């Protein structure tokens, strides 16, 4: 074949794909045209707003923006672009909350090591995976020591934590703690022992029957009333307990779905080989069940990660709370779009990452027996 005919073949291929998928009838053609116009209009508007017409650190006169009155859009009526200076000015708060600025390296240290701690669990083909897994188990203690402080490091109370730190802390720790708990609950719910079973059922159904906000309020408001005066568990920890319990109930149901999808024959086969309950569960049931349950588990994780922003109502400053506090400051007030777009972007990065990972895992674990 000549290069020319090859090219025209390619062109024909695209051409026919376009005809077939976008312009197969006049209704479809119309919708395609409308959709293209819509995407173009919205896309160009957004890009102009967010990038081309936007102020980053300086306005159109080249001055450094230190408060909202210096934003181009507040100087000249013709300008409408975003004013990202608020994000620059509040960057430290968005990332670390009110963490003392000279100690921020500790948070950065924990942030940098987080991928190293997770990577061992995520990818099984990793070289030296064993050591990464060891690190995964050390990491929580290391992170806690670095963040909170202890011998050799000054103590930074959790009330100084905020922004992405709180969001990640609640999200990662909540998911991490809820995972083992949820396996126990899911197995317990399928147990033949009546007390264990009913305990698990009551726990799961109770937690799933109330909204997360209720749990947060209970943990935040009710708990201290039951405890003696002056005994106040840490605010962030209370939220963490609520978040963990909430997540474990939902994850347990996802895992139960996986458990129920395992054919009875698998268990019987394992038993006939002489495996006891724990061996059967650990070697036969759970690996298959968890695989099946990956999509719903990731679903609940994504849900939880976003739900962490509810802690705002009990006065914790997560990423969203920091954003709102920034808007309440007279220096920056009214830059709603900038703040909320930025926060959405951060949440999107994490949630999209989780979602892509689950797709990857599903593809990898697909063994075509289901």
């Amino acid at each position: 074949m000549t290069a020319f005919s090859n090219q025209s073949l390619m062109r024909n291929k695209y051409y026919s794909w376009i005809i077939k998928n976008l312009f197969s009838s006049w209704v479809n053609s119309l919708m395609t045209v409308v959709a293209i116009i819509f995407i173009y209009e919205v896309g160009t508007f957004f890009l102009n707003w967010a990038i081309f017409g936007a102020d980053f650190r300086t306005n159109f006169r080249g001055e450094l923006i230190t408060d909202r009155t210096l934003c181009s859009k507040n100087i000249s009526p013709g300008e409408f672009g975003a004013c990202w200076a608020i994000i620059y000015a509040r960057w430290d708060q968005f990332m670390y909350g009110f963490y003392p600025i000279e100690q921020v390296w500790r948070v950065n240290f924990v942030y940098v090591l987080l991928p190293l701690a997770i990577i061992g669990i995520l990818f099984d083909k990793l070289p030296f995976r064993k050591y990464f897994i060891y690190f995964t188990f050390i990491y929580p203690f290391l992170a806690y020591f670095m963040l909170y402080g202890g011998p050799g490091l000054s103590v930074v109370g959790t009330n100084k934590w905020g922004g992405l730190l709180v969001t990640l802390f609640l999200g990662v720790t909540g998911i991490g703690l809820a995972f083992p708990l949820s396996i126990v609950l899911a197995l317990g719910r399928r147990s033949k022992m009546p007390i264990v079973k009913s305990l698990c059922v009551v726990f799961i159904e109770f937690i799933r029957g109330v909204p997360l906000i209720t749990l947060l309020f209970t943990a935040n408001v009710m708990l201290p009333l039951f405890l003696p005066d002056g005994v106040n568990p840490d605010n962030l920890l209370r939220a963490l307990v609520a978040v963990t319990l909430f997540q474990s109930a939902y994850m347990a149901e996802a895992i139960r779905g996986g458990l129920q999808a395992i054919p009875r024959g698998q268990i019987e086969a394992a038993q006939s080989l002489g495996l006891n309950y724990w061996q059967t569960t650990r070697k036969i049931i759970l690996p298959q069940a968890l695989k099946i349950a990956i999509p719903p588990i990731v679903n609940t994780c994504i849900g939880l990660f976003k739900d962490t922003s509810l802690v705002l109502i009990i006065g914790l400053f997560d990423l969203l709370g920091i954003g709102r506090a920034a808007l309440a400051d007279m220096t920056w007030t009214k830059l709603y779009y900038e703040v909320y777009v930025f926060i959405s972007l951060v949440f999107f990065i994490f949630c999209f990452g989780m979602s892509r990972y689950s797709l990857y895992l599903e593809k990898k674990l697909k063994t075509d027996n289901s």
Partner: protein
Amino acid sequence: MTKIKSLFISLLLILGVSTAIAGSHGSTHDLVKERGKLMCGSNTGLAGFGAPNDAGVWEGIDVDVCRAVAAAVFGDASKVEYVPTTSKVRFTVLQSGEIDMLSRNTTWTLSRDVDLGLEFVGVNYYDGQGFMVSKDLGVSSAMELDGASVCIQVGTTTEMNLADFFKANGMSYESVPVETNSEADAAYTAGRCDVYTTDASGLYASRAGYPDPSAHVVLPEIVSKEPLGPAVRHGDSEWADIVRWSLNAMIIGEELGITSGNVDEMKSSNNPEVLRLLGVDAGYGAMLGLSDDWAYNILSQVGNYSESFEKHIGPNTPINIQRGLNALYKDGGILYAPPFR
């Protein structure tokens, strides 16, 4: 079973380990001194009253009351730990002892004072609920608002006042409930409601931030009394006295013309009340269990009431609130502190 049991035990342990036992039966004053810092309930962010600035430092006239108390107790206005509270959790947080005082634009009402077990120790801002509408609506009085949709912050006295006002005038409204003040503001700006109601101070603060402030009017009707002030727990009068007189010291400071700038010169004043206030004539600090220079510390580190007002919400700030009711009694307002003797 044992698994579940150990699960609950470990959960309890988690709670227990992180528990800071601060000693349960001491007075708040002792507790605060022992802890070395004041736990002060603040807003999660209200411009001019209490909000963190770019450097993460809390600022506002409510925050200044916390700082005044810290200056009185420790001689250092910066020894405050701010606990951001939403309108729903603020009272429980105070009752449970998590904070030592609440200074968070909270209206002093009978039921809160009596039924909720709080003690309001004074008023640091006299406010009243007002209505703001867009000029395009063509409304000049709140009496013309029948059938309007109103953005309202849930769980506040504002919500009840609104219902009372409309009921008393035989009008109806459609409420658009929101969680925080900034959300109410955003909803109003986005046109989700015709009327934005909150304390007049809040309305002015919001309006100042609009691209075109003159397109919005604050209606003349003020439908409620909203004395905003700091509160402490019931039953610890010594502590209540300290907070009350810390606030009073700021007001008396203005009355006597003592500012953070001239406080040192005023120490050699001829006015006996100035000398008593600044601790030159000893004895008054000891009555409160404080050092004699407690009020001096407040005035030198935080400033008097007028300084705090002008710095955070006065006419030279974007919030631009006139003193009005909050001027001293001798300047036409109702701000009045009992004599210092």
